[in-house]
């Protein structure tokens, strides 16, 4: 039970080139900035859009193969697609929406009743979608998808249509629903928090091109590219020149030790805010910075720092510290452990 995707498609000047495998029971996240091609990828899997070339297989069934001339219509693919705005039929009640997804005419009423019960929609069964709350709409869309007995579930930004305060509760519900589903799940998101909480496997898509599927820990420890580093929450990425086991950062006028050999193709390093700390005496990779600004968050403060010797337009360094830290001076010496420097392509 697995979904395997390897497709290319040109849309105007945009080139999509995506390859990944999603396995049963391990939700795979497609993580990328808006407009990177995540939704287009889902549409190609569902058969709504046709790729230019490549293959898509699901449980050994070929859904699309440009070389073999196979292109199953969406009706035969058995793909459960949760649309961003849910795409509930506005002219039908909740019950009719769910029943519409049941292929077997005789089973229609029974399956609809069962899904209404399972998704706690019985009290709103005869209302229309625009009479439902955002959460009920999402449950209705999920119930409808599962009523169609899909072999794979595709979630397109499942919380983008909801107020953020609803998300926490619904995320738990959605995760529980997906746990009971016995096929692959592809979860499209631009929100790393959502991905971290729900998807053990991640495929980063950067401007149309997918990167190899990695585990969450790996994405965090070694994102590999600047896009992946930024998507995993690393906000400081700066141009770097490799030099043996050190990198020099011309924008900051600094050279940092990495204590490992730096591949010559490295162009950039990432520094996570939580890995920057006030330097202990004699610590490696310590340098003096000017405090530009202190941003207060709920649980931590982010301090924006300008390293001494920075070029005028150089990016600032971010340091995360416990909330309400006070600084006696407007300058501070900070340090980064060599192993915490992310080497990026």
């Amino acid at each position: 039970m697995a979904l395997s995707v390897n497709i290319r498609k040109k849309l105007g000047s945009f080139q999509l080139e995506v390859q990944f495998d999603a396995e049963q029971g391990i939700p795979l996240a497609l993580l990328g900035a808006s407009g990177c091609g995540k939704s287009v990828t889902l549409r190609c899997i569902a058969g709504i859009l046709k790729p230019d070339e490549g293959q898509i297989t699901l449980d050994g069934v070929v859904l699309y193969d440009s070389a073999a001339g196979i292109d199953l219509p969406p009706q035969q693919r058995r793909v459960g697609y949760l649309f961003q705005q849910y795409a509930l039929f506005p002219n039908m009640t909740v019950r009719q929406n769910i029943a519409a997804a049941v292929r077997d005419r005789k089973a229609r009423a029974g399956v609809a009743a069962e899904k209404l019960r399972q998704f706690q929609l019985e009290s709103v069964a005869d209302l229309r979608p625009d009479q439902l709350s955002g959460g009920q709409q999402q449950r209705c869309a999920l119930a409808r998808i599962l009523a169609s007995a899909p072999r794979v579930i595709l979630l397109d930004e499942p919380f983008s249509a909801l107020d953020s305060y609803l998300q926490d509760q619904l995320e738990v519900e959605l995760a529980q629903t997906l746990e009971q589903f016995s096929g692959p799940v592809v979860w499209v998101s631009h929100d790393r928090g959502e991905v971290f909480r729900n998807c053990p496997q991640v495929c980063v898509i950067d401007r149309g091109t997918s990167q190899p599927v990695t585990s969450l820990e790996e994405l965090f420890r070694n994102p590999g590219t600047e896009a992946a580093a930024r998507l995993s929450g690393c906000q400081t990425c700066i141009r770097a020149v490799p030099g043996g086991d050190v990198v020099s950062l011309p924008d900051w006028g600094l050279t940092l030790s990495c204590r490992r050999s730096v591949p010559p193709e490295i162009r950039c390093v990432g520094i996570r805010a939580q890995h920057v700390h006030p330097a202990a005496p004699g610590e490696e990779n310590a340098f003096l910075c000017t405090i530009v600004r202190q941003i207060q968050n709920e649980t931590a403060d982010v301090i924006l720092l300008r390293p001494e010797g920075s070029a005028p337009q150089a990016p600032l360094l971010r340091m995360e510290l416990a909330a309400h830290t006070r600084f006696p001076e407007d300058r501070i010496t900070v340090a980064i452990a060599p192993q915490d420097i992310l080497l990026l392509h």
Partner: protein
Amino acid sequence: MDWFPLYNSLRIAAISTAAVFFLGIWAAYYIAKLPRLVKGALDVVLTLPLVLPPTVVGWLLLMLLGPKRPLGAWVLEAFDVKLVMTWWSAIFATIVVAFPLMYRTARGAFESFDQNLADAGRTLGRSNTWVFWRVQMPVCKQGILAGTVLAFARALGEYGATSMIAGYTPGRTATISTTVYQLWRTNDDAGAARWVLVNVAISAVFLLAVNLLETRQRQTRKGVR
């Protein structure tokens, strides 16, 4: 008072509205999917009857359907049926002039239809036909209805092309509009006024019905919130 013109006008308008309903929806559905250039060209051709003078439409129809013209001569030869100067000849004229109204309003409705709904139906295993009749048409109901009403009203009021292709034969091809003209021409102002009143009454009832329909829809929608 001879009520034939009313009966004739209503049946001509009803039949041509039924034809235009399907033709307009069919054209709107397929043309909305065409590449932009083809769409633009077809749009101009199909909308032309809306802006052309009805006499031009009538003349063009006579050039095509007249007993000595290609299509008319062939039909006369093959089926022994004359296409002009019968009561149903007017249907050709009303179809041509009412079509653009149906086509344009239907196309507007289809273009504002959320394509995700159709895609959702298809991924759930439903046929394109099911999606069209059970989702797209009900969702676009208001636009389709507006187009149908406009087409019917236009067909009912058609004069120019009708008078050219069906003429005015009392009791055979007379419609309300041609009757009003004929009565005025023969100085029967009282007779003309009666038919004018009939026409105004029909139009008023029609517009009232449309307004009622609209308010009811607005109310059901309000009740929802």
